[in-house]
């Protein structure tokens, strides 16, 4: 009896060890072949791989402040042959809503198309502009659908939706799993940990949009890893009182000022 009990115990220990190993690789177990299959410990590996695709991408952040929303992206430039400003990662969904994404750019194009259709649909049916909450709900519902079938893969993007609607400034993230949550400060992509730490230090609900632009630029410059990464472009847009509630690029002069301040702040940091 005793020896039997011991055998079972050791098996369980081995089982646990295997589990830890699969956390790191999980390759060859067969549970990662399809988004429609759980692993025995209740995970869906395809969704986690999709998150890896997000983590490989340059950081995107969003700040929901007193009178608007600011979106900023660290767009890594993988070739010097690219035209400056090409492959935008912040897109306009509707007059009053923008989205910044981290992950597979092609997937984010599909999401923006979906989002725009949703805006058009709402206007047609209700004769009023879409709210950011309703939009993120629609998109997340769709993203979730892509975690259910073996014939499809989940979206390889985390998307930050920011805008101003009848309930004021709003900011949401939709993840590959289909999770959708509202935030005061949002960060996705490679440098999200450090960015979140920086965002937490700010009093976001008291910041003006202009201050938020400065902070956003500073954070993007801070999280960019000079040693590891190549060049990057700072993309930044805003929606709120400063832009007459339209989703527009931050004016060039303000962007330059923010960049300069960000570089200065970088030298004094740590």
């Amino acid at each position, binding site marked *: 009896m005793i020896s039997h009990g011991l055998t079972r115990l050791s098996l369980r220990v081995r089982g646990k060890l295997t589990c830890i190993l699969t956390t790191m690789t999980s390759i060859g177990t067969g549970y990662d072949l399809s988004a429609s299959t759980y692993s025995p410990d209740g995970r869906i590996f395809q969704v986690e791989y999709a998150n890896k695709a997000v983590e490989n991408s340059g950081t995107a952040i969003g700040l929901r402040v007193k009178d608007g929303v600011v979106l900023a992206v660290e767009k890594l430039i993988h070739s010097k042959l690219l035209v400056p400003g090409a492959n*935008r990662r912040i897109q306009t969904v509707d*007059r009053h809503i923008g989205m910044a994404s981290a992950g597979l750019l092609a997937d984010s194009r599909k999401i923006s198309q979906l989002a725009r259709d949703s805006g*058009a649909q709402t*206007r047609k049916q209700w004769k009023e502009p879409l709210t950011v909450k309703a939009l993120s709900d629609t998109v997340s519902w769709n993203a979730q659908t892509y975690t259910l079938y073996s014939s499809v893969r989940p979206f390889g993007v985390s998307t930050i939706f920011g805008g101003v609607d009848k309930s004021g400034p709003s900011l949401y993230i939709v993840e590959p799993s289909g999770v959708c949550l509202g935030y005061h400060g949002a960060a996705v992509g490679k440098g999200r940990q450090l960015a979140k730490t920086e965002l937490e230090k700010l009093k976001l609900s008291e910041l003006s949009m202009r201050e938020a632009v400065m902070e956003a630029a500073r954070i993007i410059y801070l999280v960019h890893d000079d040693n590891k990464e190549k060049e990057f472009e700072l993309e930044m847009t805003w929606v709120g009182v400063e832009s007459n509630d339209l989703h527009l690029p931050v004016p060039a002069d303000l962007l330059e000022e923010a960049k300069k301040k960000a570089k200065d702040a970088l030298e004094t940091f740590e």
Partner: protein
Amino acid sequence: MDHFPTNWGRPRNDAFDAYATYPIHQRPYNGPKDTFADGVQRTQQPIVTGTSVLAIKYKDGVMMAADNLASYGSLARFKDVQRLHQVGNYTVIGAGGDMSDFQYIQYILEELSIDEISAQDGHELGPIEIHEYMSQLMYARRSKMNPLWNSLLIGGFKDGKRFLSYVDLLGTTYSASTLATGYGAFIAQPLLRKAVEGREDVITEEEARKILEDSMRVLFYRDARSMNKFQIATISSAGVSISDSMQLETAWSFAENIRGYGAQTQ
């Protein structure tokens, strides 16, 4: 079993030509029918209508005027309708004719504008593009025998150039330095031409406003579907501005001297 005695002894279907006695092209069709085929009706007349729109070119751009009335036949039904509509940052579109069709046009143009904004390609729609789009839309609809029952004036100012052009329910287009739709095309157009033609680069904003106000006054006196409450849109390098509704001074003392119809016996 046919339970109607009146049908007994008769062919089951008079339309069915069992012995092919009809020439082929007259042979009765006995297949499935669209019950509602005769029920489909296209717009044959406008219902709730706006009357004239006036527009002129002047020194700094284009100025347009239209009153706030939407009539239901001869009834002055809605008195707070805005018939001048801004599209994008450079264009105003003024509509006469069916107001529900105009509202539909506004919706279409709103969708178009948002599509253009979200393209983020550095291009913006100007009056030329919007006029071309509307002319294609109006002509396509008339070709489907289902026109949008409007006459539209499209005016704008972009890249230092003013633009003023017309398009109607048939898809007909033309441009001139003065344009008028509806009753105004008969009553106001000659007045506008006299005041504006040849002087497009001289007329100041105040002068242009006066020209339009004078024509609107004449129209109010003459056009039984008009109203003394109207708006003026100015489109210049400063952008688009559509005024609040305003009224004109009119005098009706001459009315009692009119003879020939009405209650008087003399």
